[in-house]
């Protein structure tokens, strides 16, 4: 990453394009990149029939493929993330931004204004999911008017299934766990729990953590 080492000796235009026309049968690498970007269409016979262009195109394609892994390779040589750096980020994010709606908790005394945040309830749904082996809960939605006590609420959950786990089985256990935890902790009237399994993961490492 040198800013200064090559500051002198400006290149002339001749320098810049010097090698291309001779080596690439009159084409430049830049043209060839555009040709690739366009999916080699419309077909250009002077490129397609030139061995040197074909070699250059192959190189370019190889470089494209390498672009992403290049960064990954570099990242893999870097020292691990500093724990205080990670903690610093987590410290600076706003948890309040995920509070969602306010879900009332009933009480006979009219002076009582009691409630649980929607975000807390979603946390309960995740906690229920985390108790179910072979399954990971993702996004969770509370469909219905949660702000009206007694209104029927449907819980919609995205989940990932561990490789080799029976989906209907795990879904049943998850549904049961969600009902159980919400009945225990909230006054919500749960009309149903919809589970969408749209992901698969390898559970081998589950529980072992990093």
């Amino acid at each position, binding site marked *: 990453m040198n800013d200064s080492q090559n500051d002198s000796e400006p290149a002339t235009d001749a320098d810049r394009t010097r090698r291309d026309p001779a080596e690439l049968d009159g084409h430049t690498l830049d043209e060839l990149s555009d040709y690739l970007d366009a999916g080699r269409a419309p077909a250009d016979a002077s490129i397609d029939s030139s061995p040197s262009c074909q070699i250059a195109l192959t190189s370019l394609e190889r470089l494209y493929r390498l672009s992403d892994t290049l960064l990954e390779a570099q990242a893999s040589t870097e020292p691990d993330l500093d724990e205080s750096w990670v903690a610093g980020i987590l410290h600076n994010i706003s948890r309040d931004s995920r*509070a969602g709606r306010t879900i009332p908790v009933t009480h006979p*005394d009219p*002076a*009582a*204004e*009691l409630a649980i945040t929607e975000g807390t309830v979603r946390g309960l749904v995740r906690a229920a999911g985390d108790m179910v082996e072979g399954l990971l809960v993702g996004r969770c939605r509370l469909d219905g008017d949660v702000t009206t006590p007694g209104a029927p609420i449907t819980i919609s959950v995205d989940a990932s299934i561990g490789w080799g786990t029976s989906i209907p089985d795990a879904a049943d256990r998850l549904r049961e766990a969600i009902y159980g935890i919400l009945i225990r902790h909230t006054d919500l009237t749960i009309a149903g729990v919809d589970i969408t399994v749209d992901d698969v993961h390898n559970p081998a490492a589950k529980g072992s953590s990093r």
Partner: protein
Amino acid sequence: MTTTTDLQQEILNVTTAIPGVATVYPAAPAAQTILENVVSVITQQPAPLPISITETDGGIAVALTIGAATNTPAADLCRLVYDTLVDHFRQNSQPVASIRILIANIE
């Protein structure tokens, strides 16, 4: 004479003594003292007082946000905190207009 700060402290003490109450928000996050070298990019808002008290004609209106422990049913805990505070104010002959309790986390 009881100042608002005294009253806030009193409510805080009563609330945190209730089994199942894990946190009273928004207190200054504990992590802040641990991490001296955290990012300075985000403006740190001054931590608001953990308990809000408003004087009304019908008595005080109290509002607090708490974190509940996982082993206590949250809605029941919410009611328990309310009942405990009402009892406490009754014993101290403190008229109460309303008490708002919000559970913002189960930890």
